């Protein structure tokens, strides 16, 4: 059940999805007509390991309230080890953004396989709700 949040704060979220697992998982959620929050706009990349930390910082500077990176489960990466690389980079970046004053919860990695449509929908709902509770992100947003 999607709660009625029409009056609530609508966070801007970007979700980097790897093509082989998480994007396929989002397709399965679609085929299964699972309903979830529409805030996160997906950007499909080949591999979560190809998501540069700069993309995340850039997303925050462009006004994202939350950024999600979703890849294949550990050990299941289509590119052998990309998701491990992503995990290491994201762990470090999380420390960095925390140091910069951004709540670490605004930036998360998840593992969603091609068979996990329901998990994809759940991750989207939970992450959106998490960001909604945190409110707008202003620390890294470019002041233009």
């Amino acid at each position: 059940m999607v709660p009625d949040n029409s009056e609530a704060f609508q966070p801007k979220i970007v979700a980097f999805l790897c093509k082989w697992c998480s994007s396929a998982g989002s397709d399965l959620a679609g085929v299964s007509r699972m309903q979830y929050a529409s805030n996160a706009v997906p950007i499909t990349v080949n591999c979560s390991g190809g998501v540069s930390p700069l993309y995340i910082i850039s997303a925050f500077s462009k006004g994202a309230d939350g950024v999600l990176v979703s890849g294949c489960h550990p050990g299941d990466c289509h590119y052998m080890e990309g998701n491990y690389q992503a995990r290491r980079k994201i762990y470090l970046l999380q420390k960095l953004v925390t140091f910069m004053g951004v709540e670490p919860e605004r930036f998360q990695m998840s593992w969603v396989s091609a068979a996990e449509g329901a998990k994809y929908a759940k991750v989207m709902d939970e992450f959106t709700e998490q960001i909604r509770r945190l409110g707008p992100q202003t620390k890294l947003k470019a002041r233009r």
Partner: protein
Amino acid sequence: MAKRTGVFVCHCGSNIAATVDCAKVAAELGKEETVVFSDDHVYMCSEPGQSAVANAIKDNKLDSVVISCCTPNLHEKTFRDVAQAAGISGFQCEIANIREQCAWVHKDKAEGTEKAIKISRSAVRRVRHNESLEPIKIPVTRRAMVVGGGIAGIQCALDLANAGLDVVLVEKQATIGGHMLQLSETFPTLDCSQCIISPKMVEVSKNPKVELMVYSEVQEVSGYVGNFKVKVLKKPTYVDPESCKICDDCASVCPTVVTNEYEHGLSQRRSIFIPYAQAIPATYTLDIEHCLGLNPIACGKCADACEAGAIDYDMQPKVVEVEVGAIVVATGFKLYGQDKMHEYGYGKFPDVLDGLQFERLLSASGPTGGQVLRPSDHKVPKSVVFIQCAGSRDPAEHCSWCSKICCMYTAKHAMLYKHHVPDGQSFIFYIDIRSGGKGYEEFVHRAVEQDDVMYLRGKVSRLYEEAGKLKVQGVDTISGQLVEIDADMVVLALAMEPSDGTAEIAKTLKIGLDKDGFLAEGHPKLKPVESVTAGIYLAGAAQGPKDIPETVSQASAAAAKVIGLLSKETLAHAPTVARVIPNLCTGCDMCVQACPYDAIKLSAAGKAQVNDVLCVGCGACSATCLRAAIEVRNTTPRQVYDMLTAALGG
């Protein structure tokens, strides 16, 4: 020069249009700086839709297109081909997924429209910097590997070999044939299973195009479609197949007694054994797990007994590297676990059997020589209860899926039982009878009408032993009555599971599993024999429960796919690979280390250099480079930044 992009928004009937205002999306996208044409269409993928794209490209001198429609997995190729045919590079076409990732998962039209605009705009911003690329041509290794030597693998290997391709058939066990060899007779024709698979086994073993690797396992796979490198572990059998005369002298002196897997636990074998007389390859195998030890001081009886000198304790495991262009995975099924079916006394009462054990009892080559006898006291059972859906269709306790073949083989079991024991009575507890298939429905009727099989619609609630009888209690939901049967034997139609090692081989080959652990097909309807990885195909029950005719069909279908793939001299490799910007590169070596494919090397001048054929475009290098000196074509950092802006509403 500025791009001239065309945007096409698909309604997909009402699939997208119900939640997304497609005309508004087209209008909004029309305001983009580079968009010179935008329109919406009821079905973009239809012939008129495709023509609309082709005509717009020509009429408006478009150099790039964005199609806002379903997932790129479905129609990216369709529209890239359209673009190519209309005279622009297929890589100037990008798909914005506004169906699976938007229209189907949201209800509110305003929200859906807003998100669809963001997704589509992000694709437009990306295509703004797309390059026109030509596919990279790579040579193909015209050899295929089939993993699994059951009926699926055998059929597939034969089809491939008969088409003139070299085939490597890898089997984990010491002999090929798989489960089909354990069956007595097959529904609905009741032909003898051995009689129909044995000729195929002989054929595959004699075919000069087929290299048989038994007692072997796939260890490691590298490479890509058309050019895989597979490391196969050949386990030592400690018997030289060339010298072995199959005289049985070794087994008759072996002091260890082990449960016979081939007879599904109904008989014993020795540590040195041949599963059955007609095994292919015809040779003994020493099962090191149960052998007293390879040291002649420990035992050594078999080697002493072997006059041919075929036994070699010094045989070592060997890793062989094989180069193949395609791989077919046909690793089969196993029956749902013995340890999990306590409610029916499976594993506790010796006369509660599973379907494969009953097959062995019915089989002329089985442990009882084809007589139906109770394992406990070797008496002929006069009343047998068959329980269908033992583990299947039970999401609360066991497997959620229907194992598909049990209705038919249970009818067959009851029928054959009556043929073996004419004064016996069989009962079948069932939920539904699923007898879809040519001649299947008639077969079930024959069981009821000619062989007096009593069908009881309901589940068994209790099974216990009393005075040498198995008491089976259940409800006949048609008459609404409680039923209690004194049975001499109970046969469980256990659920079918993927065989042991399926998850491991899936991981090794980087192909997915579905939620039940079977191998995942590329698309449930349109790619039923392809895996998600190019060049790797699926056949048989490893992909989902299926009977013999279906397995054989899928095996031949997989073979046809492989033949198609390997019929070409070269394969097209996606040109969306990494590119180095030399004047930014400092030769720090970080991308070299990040690349999982060894596709990057440092040149003599100390700059990174990409091998286009090895590169798969994952982007690990680009995400690691501190100076943005390496990027993946058509997914460059600049493009991603532009997509981010669009995704965030800018």
